[in-house]
């Protein structure tokens, strides 16, 4: 559950970008980092290998602004997508208030997407969290690639989105869909928070 400070009227939410290796999780955060004014964001922390593959996580703190009189902050994390980093993925997933699943739209990456989605469910279950209770949105990244290489958003929905979660086509490198995805997960996280507390 998001951390709520009633004394200083602050809400802090943890959002994790999950998905297979090279699907564009870090690219989402880099785009956000580049677009948001310095006064509204902190330093982007990237624990990466020498070839820029995420080793542990990327982290970007954002000041969203005032919502219902609370200063609202988001902590955006990515997990390492490569299969053998599952131990660190589990650590980053701890306490997530919302998840963005970044799928690679390339047809040849479909199995990796499915495997990663199953891995998300397993890792949540291991922490006694039912995936149905966690706000999740899907992002179908790399929709800018030639159409013969990729699946359409509808095809991606058919293959991955069996829970009918909000889904967003994207080209994270150029920013298309990045904002909409963040907005989508923010809405779900705050909606859940508004439902969990007495009004």
């Amino acid at each position, binding site marked *: 559950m998001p951390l709520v400070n009633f004394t200083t009227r602050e809400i*802090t939410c943890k959002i994790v970008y999950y998905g297979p290796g090279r699907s564009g999780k870090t690219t989402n955060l880099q785009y956000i980092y580049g677009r948001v004014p310095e006064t509204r964001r*902190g330093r982007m922390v990237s624990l990466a290998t020498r070839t820029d593959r995420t080793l542990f996580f990327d*982290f970007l703190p954002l000041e969203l602004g005032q919502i219902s009189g609370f200063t*609202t*902050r988001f*902590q955006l994390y990515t997990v390492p997508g490569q299969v053998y980093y599952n131990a660190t993925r589990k650590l980053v997933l701890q306490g997530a208030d919302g998840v963005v699943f970044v799928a690679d739209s390339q047809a040849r990456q479909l199995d990796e997407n499915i495997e990663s989605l199953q891995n998300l469910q397993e890792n949540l279950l291991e922490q006694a969290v039912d995936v149905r209770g966690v706000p999740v949105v899907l992002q179908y990244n790399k929709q800018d690639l030639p159409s013969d290489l990729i699946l359409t958003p509808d095809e991606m929905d058919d293959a991955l989105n069996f829970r009918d979660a909000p889904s967003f086509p994207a080209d994270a490198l150029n920013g298309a869909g990045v904002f909409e995805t963040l907005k989508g997960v923010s809405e779900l996280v705050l909606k859940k928070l508004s439902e969990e507390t007495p009004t």
Partner: protein
Amino acid sequence: MKQTRAVEPWMMEPLERFVTEADARLTLIMTPSGQVLAQHGFTRAVDIMAAAALGAAIVSSTREIASAIGENGFRALNHQGVRHGVFLSETDTPRGRLLALVVYGSESSVGLVQLFFEDLARELNEACPQEIPQKAVISANFERELNESLASLFGR
């Protein structure tokens, strides 16, 4: 900005006492997932969050290593630099496990920090209420404010 702040007021007194006695420059108390519950010495909220994310990652990854070699966990971690030392430890309270990240300088020492951390852990455990009553947080019609906040964030 006040030097010492806490999400829940019961943490203030033990933290202020610890900072004074251990002569700590910066201190964070957080949940295992890196959410900050109390802090001393940081000025920007976004800097606090980065430090907490990294501290929680160190503690949780070290715990996994401990488990892999058949240890229950390590009591504390300390990294000693030329000008600063970083001390990380955890403690259990009735509300769950808390992590602490302490940065100290030449006016203090790892021994002093460790000694007073034990007091801090005990005092937090004693002061911790069993349950915090739920209060209303955000109203159901938050969408307009969220949209405006995100639009201004992205310069739209």
